[in-house]
């Protein structure tokens, strides 16, 4: 549980720092808006994943991906 809390704090802190410093980067407003629209769902996903991982759910998608890639490995 402390790990879960720490990882959420880390994510929120990085997201906050990102949004605070975004204005200082320069560039046009449209581009900034587009980047914001990209980052908001990513941060939401990261917090969701933090909770899933923190609760001890082991997805092990690498092994599933390896099974999927298995037939391609035999080519050649």
């Amino acid at each position, binding site marked *: 549980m402390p790990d879960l809390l720490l990882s959420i704090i*880390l994510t929120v802190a990085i997201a906050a*720092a990102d949004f605070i410093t975004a204005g200082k980067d320069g560039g046009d407003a449209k581009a900034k808006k587009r*980047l914001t629209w990209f980052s908001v769902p990513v941060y939401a996903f990261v917090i969701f994943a933090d909770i899933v*991982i923190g609760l001890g759910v082991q997805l*092990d998608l*690498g*092994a599933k991906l390896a099974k999927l890639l298995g037939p391609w*490995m035999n080519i050649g």
Partner: protein
Amino acid sequence: MGKRKTTDRKISSIIALQIIGSSLVISSVGPAMQDSWIAIIIGVGLSILLTWVYGALLKLYPDRGFLQIFQEAFGNTAGKAVCGLYAAYAIFAGAQTFYIYDEFIKIVGLNETPQVAILMVSLPLIIWHVRSGPDNIGSCAKFLLPIVLIFVGLTFLLAIPFMDVDNLKPVLGSGPTALVHGTFSALVAPLGEIVLVVPFFGVADRNIKPLRVMVKGILIGSAVLLMATLRNLMILGAPTCRLFLFASYDAVGVISIGDFVSRISVLIGINLVLSGIVRIDVSLYAASLSVSEALGTRGSTRPAACCGLLMVVLGYILYNNVLSAVNFIPYIPTISIPFQFIFPLIALITGKIKGAGRKKQAGNGTGERQQRRENAEN
């Protein structure tokens, strides 16, 4: 976008450290077993051919960055889609490195420390590093490379009394299939990954020659990789090397000269952490630049924060433990091939065809203009 232009020495240092850092992720002994060093030498030769493709692409579009070239060659929509795919590839490569980097620090040095504590220190630093611009990454790489070279050279010299040349025998005994497999693995996994460094040329000095810079970086990085592979093979032997997760760390751990020189495996630990940081920096920079290009916000490194977090989370979603991450390594070439070979090659061919078409059009235009002038004169 960085205000200063990145110099050739900085980019070749980044390439060299990117290759050296691969020994953190990929075991120095591949499928070619005791012939792994031969596989690396052949792989280096082939990787120079690969860099020729990247060099030709950058030469064909001198005023464009690597990712902008795809938009030029494939058109706006398809080009942006390719940039999005490159972002996914860079995030995946970074996730793999970040996960093993994190596990390495935990396994080797800080067993009792929670991983999130390591992340709290390393992740903001890496994001800040990338947000500061590519020139900053280059300056760090230029500073770190001599340190890494000295440490590798020192461990090689100190390990000489513990080496057994018989461990390299029988030379070419692994068989042609294993050697081809090993060469391909060396070509794709450490050497081909310099495709992630190619976007740095977009902010480089216009006078530098990309091919020469890439070859220089590859030669320095591969020399270190070759030295480390030979050292590990001669100290531990190929079958034992394959048993270790971090073969370099364990091979150097054998060195003990008197009571004075012992436990110098910490030098390898420092090496792997330093080059690992540069490797993650490169992946994160490539990912944030690709996201920027895909969203139409040229050259911004702002997505570094969310891409960095995504890398960390992806590592934990993909793998349960370091063993599952290591077991996934043989599958990396299948994922990497389109990004290292197919997309750049198609872009080069399309660019050449478009260039030839433009030249022909320009030639026809001049002919028509000349004919019109002659008609007017008559």
